[in-house]
């Protein structure tokens, strides 16, 4: 895994069509543990497929399936954009 510090950002900042890799997940709250159990572990890459009409939730393509998450509930997940 490459050194991410310079380019990392919060999950909530992602926009439609972006690809990203999870760089770090803050100390596991129960909510973040559940999100990891859905396959979003450190190092996982995913693609933002769509954003719902009112700005939330966000649909992502991860591990071959589609998952929707609310931006506010991803606090603690740092990602880096990849091309």
């Amino acid at each position, binding site marked *: 895994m490459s050194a991410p510090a310079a380019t990392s950002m919060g999950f909530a900042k992602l926009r439609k069509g972006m690809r990203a890799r999870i760089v770090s997940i803050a100390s596991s709250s*129960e*909510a973040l*543990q*559940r*999100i*990891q*159990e*859905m*396959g979003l*572990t*450190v*190092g*996982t890459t995913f693609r933002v497929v*769509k954003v*719902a*009409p*009112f*700005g*939330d*939730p966000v*649909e992502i393509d991860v*591990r*071959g*399936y*589609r*998952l*929707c*998450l*609310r931006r506010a*509930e991803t606090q603690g997940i740092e990602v880096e954009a990849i091309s």
Partner: protein
Amino acid sequence: MSVSAVVAPVTSPSQTRLVAIVGNPNAGKTSLFNALTGSSQKVGNYPGVTVEKVSAELKLEGERIDCIDVPGLYSLAPRSEDERVAADVILGKCTDLSKPDLLVCVLDASNLERNLFFYSQLADLGIPLLVALTMVDRIERDGRRVDYARLTNLLGAEVIPVNGHKAKGMVVLKEAIAKNLAAPRIPKLELGGPDALEGKIALLRERLARIGMDVTSGEVRESLFDPSEEMQLYLSDFPEVREAFDEAKAIAAIEPAQAPPADTATRYQWAGMVQRATVPQPVEGRQRPLTDRIDYVLTHRVFGLGVFLGVMYLVFQSIYTFSQPLMDLISKGFSFVGGLIGPHLENVPILKSLAVDGLIAGVGSALVFLPQILILFFFIAFLEGTGYLARAAFLMDKLLGWCGLNGRAFIPLLSSFACAIPGIMAARVMPDSKSRLATILVAPLMSCSARLPVYLLLIGAFIAPYGPIWAGFALFAMHLLGLLVAIPIVWFLNRGVIKGKRLPFLLELPPYQWPRWRDVWLAMYFRAKVFVTTAGTTIVVMSILIWGLSFFPRSNEARARYQTEVTRRNPSASQDVIDHHVQEQELAHSYLGRFGKGIEPVFVPAGFDWRITTAILSAFPARETVVPSLGIIFSLGTDTEKDPKALQQAMRDARWPDGRPLMTPLTAVGLMVFFALCCQCMSTLATVKRETNSWKWPVFMFTYMSLLAYLAAVGIHQIGSRI
């Protein structure tokens, strides 16, 4: 090499053996359970919780087996009540079930990686496992093939494809269940630890698996310093294997081996390895071309919302229109039965009234909701089966999320505008029990179709004289009121009343598919059955209770006295007029009527006299009865439906003892608001009892709604009469 152990069956032959069907949500678990067991399912509740228990008996080679459909799980670490129950069933900690003898794990072949994460947790339990692989058609459609032999090998369990849930697949699955019960296999997975060495070993295993060599991590560890001939061949031929091998060897030289419990990342690493080794990957971005094309429209920010509104309108309109003739038919049927039975009991008036007014009318008032339940659950099962329900939740989540609900709440809330009962039952589309309970508790605030006659009566009498625009506005406002009141109530409930932690809203969007008609039909059938058996019995008991309160006490002497009262005042009174007067007086002197008079002072601040109060009280079992009740109380007989104008006139003419008009437009608004907010429907309460598995919540609902209705009515009268 095998990663499973065949062990001897442990159960005593006297006990019925238990097979639990487990798996992720959306993996096709319920569909498989339906195909396996059909309509022989039993629907109940787990003790003490709101989670529904679905079980069935299965005949296998002459032996009767209990089969249970465990609620869908993403992980064995329970985070909600439902998940705790599911985990308890699997672990054998559920008090009314034995420990499962076999777990049939349903894995979605088209979403294998995430499904395998859950499988890896199951495999740690030491319970015999059998795998049913679903959605294989999605893989095979674009020419890919599942490597069953390697999958069986890597999972340490027999893998049965159950494509399309056809009868043939079920026969094979049943045979496999019988075989695995006789000779159980307990998988032992090689997951590897989270430390650096295990990571490198897993990477090496993954790269070896990709070129067709399955090895355990123990074998890799041994081979690091003493590679086999075969391994040496791979090392020289494949540079990526060499790379991983060297890295692992470098770490192994400085770090002693250890085996801590596997964490989430390690499990996913294993799951990814197994998936890549057994199911060829589709071309990037081409996994689901049809679904993506449909979603371009259905989750589009403009078109998506348009389609959503259209679909919801169709559902709502269907409940409203299609159920009406059926409901009329049921009502007529029960009146007809009452009419048949009545004459036979003419000599025993108490029995006649109990049978006709209590029992038959009570059962009828409950069964009348059946068409709405069936129609709503047809749509829910159909939309859920296609995958559209998840899309609708995606579109609506932001609108419902801020007050503590989530996108899935729109179906129960919207259907409650037709009738709260199917709406409350529909709240089970919400996976977490906290938001489900919040939705159930506010669903009856939505203005249901049974409130409509009251609005029409009162608006017609007191608002319509100001013009049709005001009348239309009043009707619209009455329907909006419940929704506006519900939002702050949910906010409040989530902060004080409903215990439990908030879970993140995680929503999977499965590929679109055509629903299986068997699943749609069974969903409708079981909802109807549950309603008739459990809610129905409560409703009958309560009907008889309310009937008793409005019937007793009565005597022939009193009856004769009421008759002479009329004939003294009006010697030429017709039999109809006499009967109405007797009915009115008997109701007024019943326990219910006396209670109405007794608590008249309570309702005077809202501008209601004893007549309105008694009508309100008599409408608590079912608000539909209020218009006939008002008819009786305002001495017009029960045929008010034929002549609503007469009742409207009588209400306008009614006076307080001091001569003031009883009802003004303000009183009418107060009364309508009272009806909009009050919980006057025992079928609703019985349904809430059944769905929450406790009397606590129906009692709470009844109390808060009645208080709210009363305070609103008093507020409107007190403030309104001072302006």
